[in-house]
């Protein structure tokens, strides 16, 4: 599956993207690869502003018609803004995962060097497409 992986962003193995902002905060969303795997999103549970989160802590949930999936904070920090538009328009994540589909903004002192660059993330995405136990290959019942 070919998906868009912008070169100027940072990534996690759990499919979040991270964009550094000029004010020292980072904006976080899920990747094009992740939204493809999930399919049409119908609900996003967004975190509360002011919440302190640790790296790899679950802080949002994105739900497609078929499944719910956690979104993890990429870094230690405090949530300073959330994308309220997702409450009424969860499909923004499908339509524009790196733009209008952003999920939250994080104030963080952590270095971005612990994250993946675009090339390293692409390797993760490709490996997952080939892994039958991954999100790319959900099991249906019935």
């Amino acid at each position: 599956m070919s998906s868009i992986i912008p070169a100027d962003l940072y990534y996690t193995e759990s499919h979040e993207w991270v964009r550094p902002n000029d004010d020292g905060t980072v904006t976080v969303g899920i990747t094009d690869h992740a939204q493809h795997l999930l399919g049409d999103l119908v609900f996003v549970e967004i975190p509360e502003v002011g919440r302190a989160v640790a790296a790899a802590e679950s802080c949002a949930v994105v739900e497609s018609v078929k499944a719910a999936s956690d979104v993890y904070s990429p870094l230690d920090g405090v949530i300073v803004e959330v994308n309220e538009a997702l409450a009424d328009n969860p499909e923004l994540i499908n339509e524009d995962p790196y733009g209008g589909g952003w999920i939250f903004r994080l104030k963080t002192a952590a270095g971005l060097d612990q994250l993946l660059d675009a090339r390293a993330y692409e390797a993760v995405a490709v490996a997952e497409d080939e892994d039958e136990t991954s999100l790319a290959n959900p099991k249906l019942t019935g």
Partner: protein
Amino acid sequence: MAKRTPLYARHAALGARLVDFGGWDMPLHYGSQLDEHHRVRRAAGLFDVSHMTIVDFADPAPTRTLLRHLLANDVARLYPGKALYTCMLNEAGGVIDDLIVYDRGAAGYRLVLNAATRDKDLAWIAPIAARFGAAWRERDDLAMLAAQGPEALARLELVLGAATVAAVRALKPFHALEAEGLFIARTGYTGEDGVEILPPAAVTPELWDRILAADVAPCGLGARDTLRLEAGMNLYGSDMDETTTPLVSGLGWTVAWEPMDRDFLGRAALERQRTVGVPQTFVGLVLEERGVLRGHQPVYIDDREIGQITSGTFSPTLTRAIALARVEAGVGVRCQVDIRGKRLPARVVKPPFVRHGRVLIE
């Protein structure tokens, strides 16, 4: 390696997201599950359901006797061309599978069973059929397509011809005919008008292409699941299984109690359950807030757990979450569902939620 239907290459070429479904590589969607759902409610969609298990019994007389014992609904209600939805029960009244049986007159009976239950179904049926002297064979030489939606029959005229479609239109729901080498039934799993077609595997890719060319949209099993849930139809393995009887699964209507002396498998257990009182009821739920209902979420009244969701989803037609749930008998109109530790209010309703494009709940 997973099994593939005659349409596997077609699905791959259409860019389908292929997933494992009961040991089969099947299309989940071809891009957007929501769009496919709406296409079926508003116009017409085409599903490959060739993974379903088809079994033919050629000899009507011994098969009729067999099926009156094997199935909880009564094939004595059938006549040539008529179909019947029924459960196949174990001695404890648990559901081994749900299926449709078609009366083909002198050609015998046809059973369409689930895909994931194939092996255990055939292992269950084989010795009982042998005892009744009813020969059977699996029809893995047949594929199965479901063309569903308010426009499905009109669009099939280009493919099947006006005369055949007129004959199909003259059929009532749950009736079938055989024309031009095709078995065509007015059955489905979407709550919309339409047909299920059982073509020989060899001609299936061409038939698929011609139906798509008649502006019927390819639809995956993802949309099939949201459509059937809106239509209040049970899914085997989620809504009922061998540990639950039809009476606690919203399927009491499929059990033919009369005549009293028909000795079908599971009857004694069902009668005992009916005598002591059926402990649970099977209901629909509509979530009153944002969120998505899912199978296995617990259902509460105040602080007491009264049951569980058996299958839930986001309803594309209602744009809110709906579910089927097995809860204590006597439940009122309000309850709460535990979603990731939060109790959200839900309303108890009688399924179906949507049929023939119309919302049936307030």
